[in-house]
């Protein structure tokens, strides 16, 4: 009669289980499904559209779902010159996006005002909203935007998401675990 073993290891279950940190799993989910808010304000928006189109295909990075409602977006891509007339509108749209949210300043104008050193242009969107990734170029090529997106993905995967989002709960867990 074959002897049945009662062990802690069950290959049927164990084969389908991955051990990881909660943050790592959460960040992995988030970074591969970034829904962009296309804040197209100037010529950078054309490159942004090219990035979304078939040749460069931003869908390879899970960011193809351009949403025209800020309430469904994760990352705002500020693509173009931000004039003072537009500045507070950009800020308002950013504030309407649900947390967690990120910002990519695409191109010289959105990053620093670019060549528009004049009375009408905000000298960098980072004066109004926090920026995660700056992309140089005037306008940047789609490859540059994709590289910026990958940088943002790297940044997201380093975040302590759980602690940032639920600090009280995180503390409780830490206390319970000693």
């Amino acid at each position, binding site marked *: 009669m074959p002897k049945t073993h009662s062990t802690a290891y069950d290959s049927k279950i164990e084969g389908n289980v991955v051990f990881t940190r909660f943050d790592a799993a959460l960040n992995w989910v988030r970074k591969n499904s970034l829904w962009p808010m296309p804040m197209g304000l100037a010529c950078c928006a054309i490159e942004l559209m090219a990035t979304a189109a078939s040749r460069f295909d931003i869908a390879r990075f899970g960011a193809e779902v351009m949403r025209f409602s800020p309430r469904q977006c994760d990352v705002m891509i500020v693509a173009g010159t931000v004039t003072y007339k537009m500045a507070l509108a950009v800020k308002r749209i950013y504030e309407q996006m649900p947390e967690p949210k990120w910002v990519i300043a695409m191109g010289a104008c959105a990053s620093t005002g670019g*060549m528009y050193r*004049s*009375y009408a242009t905000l000298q960098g969107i980072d004066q109004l909203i926090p920026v995660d990734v700056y992309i140089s170029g005037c306008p940047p090529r789609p490859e540059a935007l994709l590289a910026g997106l990958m940088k943002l993905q790297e940044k997201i995967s380093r975040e302590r998401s759980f602690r940032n989002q639920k600090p009280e709960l995180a503390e409780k867990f830490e206390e319970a675990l000693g």
Partner: protein
Amino acid sequence: MTAEELSDSLGKRFGEKIQAKTEFRGETSYTIAPSGLREIAKFCRDELSFNYLLDITSIDNFSEEPRFEIIYHLYSMSHAVHLRLKLKVPEEVGAIDTVSDIWPTANWHEREIYDMMGIKFNGHPDLRRILMWDGYPYYPLRKDFPLEGLPSEMPDVAFTKVTPMEGGPFVTVPSTATSKDREPRARPPDL
């Protein structure tokens, strides 16, 4: 009808309202008195068939008197003739009559001049700013307005700050040099 005949009839009809006439490379420009603007504009449209107003522009001749100049570019579709009307506006007057009822396209042109240069248009149906926002306190294309701008604040509408020029202004230099040498970069005025 040729350009000469058209403009001659203008000269005959409004002799006392016309201050100067210039011919340059086949282009005719009349400097007219601001008081005669509407009368001349109507005559140009109805009698001389200048049915197309190409553009209205304004110039700030800062430190000269009268300070402002407004220029109307007219075109006759039926005769294929251009005509330019100029008039001077002193700073203390700062207003001229609208022509937006004569050529409807003047509506937005006049709003732009009001926005950028601060010249008002009497009788304009909707004289609001067109590029900057209502309540912005300056007129940016005036010569005494600095390129880097001036700070302003309209709560919940817009704000402006002074732009750091970083050794600028950033300007191009007309030359036959390569595009690398011609491109806009910081060129302080003393260099």
